């Protein structure tokens, strides 16, 4: 009798611990996703009105340089014997002035739509969160009553919570860097527009516009990738039957979440419209922060120390072996 009681108590404790871990993991995953979703909206968009004074100053500089750029372009045209196309320069001047004056307003317009696009999956994220919470509650009920039936994998919940938490932090860091990059780059728009009057420097405007477009669309790309991964994981976790298919979904979903967190460059290089340089720049800032972290330096130091010790031991053994008298 005593053994049965002890067994029942132990089973109850194990059940309580499993339920607590499952609840904690679910809460962590849901909170991380909610935090991520709140960050994907307007909150992480740069406030472009802050840089209006800087933009005005750069615009003044660009207008002062405009004459010099036109003169240089004309000298270049004379030197290369292509002055017959010189009238095009007048058109370029008008377009450049429009770009310099209207650049900030146009970028703000595009930023609004980029923020809107990034919120495409917000209701779906909420539905998935509710589905996960509901399934875990049902599963807990099954475990508490000691019944046998479909239940959510606790290990899967733990892994999901960890990956989603990492993802939320990394994506937030990237969004901050993205916002800072947009604010920094936008300030130079008037100058680049005016410099682009010279046909040889027209590439600067193309590069800048591609870079900005890439930065704006990167948020939508990351939001979509996270949704794909989270959906796969939640569908696999809440599935009533454990089959090879659900296992594949779980593995694929976790892989997608980890790619979104640690290697979004793979996605950016596949989707050319986001100009993978923009993503890589935003990404490398976070990467640099990790690279200069003390654990990395400590690991390198330990590796060097280990190499040194091995070298010394090698020398010592070598010396002893040579000193050993031959029989």
């Amino acid at each position: 009798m005593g053994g049965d009681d002890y067994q029942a108590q132990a089973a109850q404790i194990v059940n309580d611990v499993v339920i607590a871990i499952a609840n904690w993991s679910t809460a962590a995953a849901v909170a991380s996703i909610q935090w991520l979703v709140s960050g994907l909206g307007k909150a992480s968009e740069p406030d472009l009105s802050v840089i209006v004074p800087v933009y005005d100053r750069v615009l003044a500089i660009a207008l002062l340089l405009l004459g010099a750029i036109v003169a240089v372009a004309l000298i270049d045209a004379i030197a290369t014997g292509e002055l017959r196309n010189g009238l095009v320069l007048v058109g370029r001047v008008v377009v450049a002035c429009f770009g310099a004056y209207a650049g900030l307003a146009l970028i703000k317009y595009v930023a609004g739509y980029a923020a809107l696009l990034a919120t495409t999956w917000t209701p779906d994220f909420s539905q998935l969160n509710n589905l996960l919470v509901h399934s875990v509650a049902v599963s807990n009920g099954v475990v508490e009553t000691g019944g046998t039936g479909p239940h959510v994998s606790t290990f899967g919940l733990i892994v999901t919570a960890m990956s989603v938490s990492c993802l939320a932090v990394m994506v937030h860091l990237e969004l901050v860097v993205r916002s800072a990059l947009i604010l920094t780059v936008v300030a130079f728009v008037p100058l680049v527009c005016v410099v682009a009057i010279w046909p040889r420097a027209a590439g600067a405007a193309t590069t800048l516009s591609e870079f900005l477009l890439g930065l704006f669309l990167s948020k939508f790309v990351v939001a979509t990738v996270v949704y794909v991964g989270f959906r796969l994981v939640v569908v696999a976790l809440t599935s009533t039957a454990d089959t090879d298919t659900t296992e594949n979904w779980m593995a694929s979903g976790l892989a997608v979440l980890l790619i979104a967190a640690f290697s979004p460059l793979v996605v950016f290089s596949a989707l050319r419209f986001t100009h993978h340089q923009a993503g890589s720049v935003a990404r490398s800032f976070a990467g640099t922060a990790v690279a200069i972290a003390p654990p990395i330096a400590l690991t390198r130091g330990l590796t060097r120390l280990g190499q040194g010790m091995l070298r010394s031991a090698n020398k010592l053994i070598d010396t002893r072996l040579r000193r050993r008298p031959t029989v």
Partner: protein
Amino acid sequence: VSRIFVDISVRPDFNGLPPNVYHGLVTLTDNAAAVLTLVAGLGLTVSLTGLVIASFTANRELGERAKGGIGISVFAIALLYVGVAAANYAGRLFS
């Protein structure tokens, strides 16, 4: 569309620039225009010389090229003025 531009307005802030930066940039533009004028003047001189030589030697091809050179030299200066005028007009139009 007008709401987009009313939402955030920009105006070149010439007064905010330090005087030495302002004068430096103006001088840079003047210098560039002066170089263009020099190049155009040199082209005009060379072309006129070529035209004279062509008339003495009755070289028709050289004469045509010299006339083309004169046109290009004058056209370049005119284009500079037209370009700056277009910039001023566009500045007033879009501000």
